[in-house]
């Protein structure tokens, strides 16, 4: 068989109209012939365009009946039908594959967008939390700054004691607002199960009163704000002890780290 003859078969094959023998011979030939394979592809493309541009002709009644009859016959008929409809079926399969690919691509796009939205929401929530934290921090700093800047503010210096001679602290006391800001310097890092506790020794009470519990950073520094100070009576002194984590009701020792008289 010549190349021209194979090319003619390829034209029929693209329409699904080649006989079984022709189809087999063509398949065998296409394995080794590039030019005929190219011709087959070109015919296939032309056939695809036919599908788009030819108006389907309605099947005659006898053909419809023939199809209905064939449905009831067994596998042999199915194979025969497959051969008959093999031509149109390949482009239908191509269209279906394309549709599924596009659908899959769209689904993929939707999922990616949903993931993106989820991620954006998480980021927004994280930023809101950070914003809240910074707002609270800002309010605290503003309060501390106003305590430091007020003309009525008194300062009390606390000096390091025997257990920690290099430590010190400075108290900025604002009596009108009954609050104070205390800065601690060079305190030893407190153990994980211990906390520092600031005590106020008042003139009207024999026992010290807790003014706050704090931990120090690795640099040995710390800052605390004290609200509702008992300024109605005289503050005789302030002192810091190391206590159990979270603080205690009364000091358990007299190893003062810093201490100062008002």
């Amino acid at each position, binding site marked *: 068989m010549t190349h021209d003859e194979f090319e003619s078969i390829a034209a029929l094959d693209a329409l699904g109209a080649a006989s079984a023998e022709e189809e087999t011979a063509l398949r065998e030939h296409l394995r080794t012939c590039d030019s005929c394979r190219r011709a087959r592809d070109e015919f296939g493309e032309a056939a695809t365009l036919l599908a788009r541009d030819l108006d389907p002709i309605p099947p005659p009644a006898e053909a419809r009946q023939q199809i209905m009859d064939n449905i009831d016959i067994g596998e042999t008929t199915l194979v025969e039908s497959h051969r008959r409809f093999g031509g*149109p079926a390949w482009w239908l399969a191509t269209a279906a594959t394309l549709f599924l690919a596009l659908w899959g691509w769209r689904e993929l796009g939707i999922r990616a967008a949903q993931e993106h939205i989820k991620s954006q929401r998480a980021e927004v929530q994280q930023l809101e939390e950070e914003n809240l934290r910074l707002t609270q921090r800002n309010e605290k700093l503003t309060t501390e700054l106003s305590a430091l800047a007020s003309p009525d503010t008194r300062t009390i210096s606390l000096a390091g004691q025997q257990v920690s001679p290099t430590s010190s602290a400075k108290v900025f006391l604002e009596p009108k607002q009954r609050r104070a800001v205390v800065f601690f310097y060079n305190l030893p890092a407190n153990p994980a199960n211990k906390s520092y506790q600031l005590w106020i020794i008042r003139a009207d009470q024999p026992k010290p009163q807790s003014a706050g519990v704090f931990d120090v950073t690795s640099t040995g520094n710390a800052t605390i704000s004290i609200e509702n100070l008992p300024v109605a009576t005289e503050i005789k002194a302030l002192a810091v002890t190391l206590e159990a984590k979270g603080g205690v009701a009364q000091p358990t020792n007299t190893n003062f780290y810093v201490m100062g008289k008002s």
Partner: protein
Amino acid sequence: MASQERSAVRSALADLPEAQRTALQLAYFEGLSQSEIAERLREPLGTIKTRMQLGMKKLRDRLQAFRQ
């Protein structure tokens, strides 16, 4: 481009002789084999085969020419 291509194929189809176009339609849309088309049109099998081959080649050539 796609619409121009479609237009070229439509034009090529219109230029095909009626007998070739009918053979292509019967093969493509009704899935009839060559012998069934021959039987339907009461034409020799070789004639039908030639019509289909010529019709497809013209379509292919027109498409190739359009793309070049």
